[in-house]
């Protein structure tokens, strides 16, 4: 197991940081989060063409750059730090990973190249209005009707579900339950019987949709009824990617809190010289560093195909969620009244922290998963 990044990985991170510092200042975040689609196509194009980020962990034979989870997580951490508005998590993490895990080689050869190049933005629709984050929550059905599959049911909390140009949908064979009978389907955005509605998300930088399927045609990906394992692997990697995104955000909040505390004067002293603030910051640093350790370790474990991956993914997700929320709350507290204003940027990260806390399952859900998946 590697416990530090290589020089190449550090350089890669520096390149992304330079890009984001320029392209994703909070003025841009605020502009884009107020739009319906939530991102800027031109930035997305640069991200793909200049940096090749959507291609990062896609195999080279499918137009990717063939890097792995560690590099993907470096990208996520920096996106989290700068709150980049882009459909990256939906397309490059969720949909890409689902296709890599669940589709046949031929299907991958068809679907992955346009995703890798950034030309096509995909998403994965798996959660439903019941809000469950695993296979057991899937109720949407796929009926075989004259050689075609017709999907019926509702997906919710679908990331970039309204803007995505390719939908990977998890559906189940009627009459099955649990992890049985699940398959991935691809659905075109203009498919018959598909209604896409934007949900109002608290975190306006993360666009969510409700998708209603009524006898909507879908094309099977991979083998019928065998998506459960692929979905589970996909969700593990997604949780790890999210954990890395969260530690980037938490670090941004910690930096902001510390630098404000060093500058803000009350009672003739910087507030950072008061133990109440000082010790809060020390505790924040410990929590953020711990979450980083978990997120980095899990990313490396994914790269190594570690058999303990589900447990490590849950550990990282639970740890990062708590660290992010605590850091966000403390960052507001340290800023005082100003930290509660719309004008101050803290709330942008606070809302991202809150949505990340529950997205893919909250800390208490993942702690229980950790207990189930880890040998004590």
């Amino acid at each position, binding site marked *: 197991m590697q416990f530090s990044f290589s020089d190449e990985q550090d350089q890669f991170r520096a390149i992304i940081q330079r890009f984001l510092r320029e392209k994703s200042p909070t003025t841009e975040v605020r502009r884009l989060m107020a739009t319906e689609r939530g991102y800027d196509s031109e930035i997305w194009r640069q991200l793909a063409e200049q940096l090749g980020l959507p291609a990062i962990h896609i195999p080279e034979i499918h137009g990717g750059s063939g890097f792995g989870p560690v590099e993907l997580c470096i990208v996520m951490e920096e996106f989290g730090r700068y709150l980049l508005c882009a459909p990256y998590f939906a397309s490059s993490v969720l949909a890409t990973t689902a296709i890599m895990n669940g589709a046949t080689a031929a299907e991958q050869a068809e679907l992955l190249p346009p995703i890798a190049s950034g030309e096509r933005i995909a998403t994965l629709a798996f*959660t439903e209005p019941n*809000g469950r*984050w695993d296979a057991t929550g899937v109720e949407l059905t796929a009926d075989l009707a004259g050689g075609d599959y017709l999907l019926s049911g509702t997906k*919710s*909390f679908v990331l970039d579900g309204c803007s995505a140009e390719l939908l990977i949908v998890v559906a189940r064979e009627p009459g099955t339950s649990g992890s049985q009978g699940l398959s991935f389907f691809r659905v075109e955005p203009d498919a018959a019987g598909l209604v896409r509605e934007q*949900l*109002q*998300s*608290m*975190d306006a930088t*993360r666009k*969510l949709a409700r998708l209603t399927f009524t006898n909507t045609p879908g094309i099977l990906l991979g083998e019928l009824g065998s998506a459960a394992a692929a979905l589970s692997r996909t969700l593990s990697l997604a949780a790890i990617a999210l954990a890395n995104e969260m530690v980037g955000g938490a670090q941004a909040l910690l930096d902001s809190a510390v630098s404000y505390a060093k500058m*803000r*004067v*009350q*009672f*003739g*002293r910087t*507030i950072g010289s*008061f133990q*109440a*603030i000082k010790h809060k910051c020390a505790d924040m640093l410990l929590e953020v560093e711990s979450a980083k350790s978990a997120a980095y370790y899990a990313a490396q474990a994914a790269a190594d195909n570690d058999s303990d991956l589900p447990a490590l993914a849950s550990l990282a997700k639970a740890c990062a969620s708590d660290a992010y929320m605590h850091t966000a*709350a403390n960052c*507001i*507290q340290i800023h*005082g*009244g*100003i*930290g*509660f*204003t*719309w*004008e*101050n940027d*803290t*709330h942008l990260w*606070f*809302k991202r922290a*809150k*949505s990340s*806390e*529950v*997205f893919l399952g*909250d800390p*208490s859900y993942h702690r*229980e998963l950790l207990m189930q998946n880890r040998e004590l």
Partner: protein
Amino acid sequence: MAESNNMSNYDEASLRAEVTAWLAANWDPQLSLIDWRTRLTESGWAMPQWPAQWYGKGVSAQLAAVVAEEFAAVNALGVASGGPGRLAAVTILEHGSDAQKAQYLQRILTGEDAWCQLFSEPGSGSDLAGSTTRADFDGSQWLINGQKVWTTSAHHATYGLLVARTDWDVPKHQGLSYFVLDMQQPGVEVHQLRQMNGHASFNEVFFTDARIAADQVLSNVGNGWQVALTTLAHERRLADVLRATAARSKLEGPIYEEERAETAIVMEPYQWYPQRAGRVDLVGARAKSTGAINDPAIRQEIAKLLIMSQTAEWTARRARAAQEHGRPQGPEGSLGKLASSNVARAASHVHTLISGADAMLTGSDSPLDGIIAEILVSVPAISIAGGTDEIQRNIIAERVLGMAKEPRADTGPFRDVPKNTV
């Protein structure tokens, strides 16, 4: 209120008899709000604890409660309950000149004038006495320059209670003065300030050579901090007042309608305050309706919240009971604010657990038509507004537990004290 010690000779029976008789003769729900309150203030039954000279009867708190009982019995309205106005009234009553009292008190009580409180500044929040808004005397009047913030109701206030610095060469608490400022003048600019929860309950107020006449200082020049302490001491008692008007929320009749309209305006900035406190009242029903009640881990968190919230309520009642028995209030009173922060944070956590994925939504997509989302993005305010948790802990440790203050870094002439360079 030094003057409220001039207790009258009423006993309970005579007082009750007199107020009942007066109400029978005077209370008329067909009157307009202002007409009734004008009659009321002139009678002295408006503020029974106040001196007879100023709209009162000079009676004790206990006897004043008897008056309130009789008013409630016939659903008679009291004086205007607008928060900053009430603060202005008690401050002027205690520190104002007779001319100032005559000029302002009655119109505060009738509700004809709205007020706002100009204390906090961008550079002085926790450190309220660190005010850098300046008041310079030009020989005939005061010129005000600087900025205030967190000013509720500034946009419709007639007058403001202003703390500003009049002397930069003395230690910080000694260089402040307390003014009545006419808000309706060109040198005063009011901007709404939007919060992270989308509401805009507060204002920023900018002064550019705003003017105050020489006779509009409350108490003496340089005594502003002492006057401000009076205002601050009354700040926490407003919740009770607002509770009283709620008791009339179902009565019909023009004067009640008028009062409700007035209350709606006063209450407008506070709409989200219940959410800020975490809405523990919603937890049970939410847990049941979502099925979260069946999750043993969530049950633990709900129980922790209930314990915190119940004990906070009981602690407050212990404090009130001690007061009613004429005993020293004990530490219970000072702890309420800190407890309410803990309760709100725990409630926000529990609402998140219960809501799961729905916690990502807002507006009408969020559970209870957005209330849940509003809780999650409002709770961070409770540990800041009205004195941060950190300041509360200082107060509790120093004033209740008697622990030593920290060495001060802001003594000496205020001019030389390190300040924010906003």
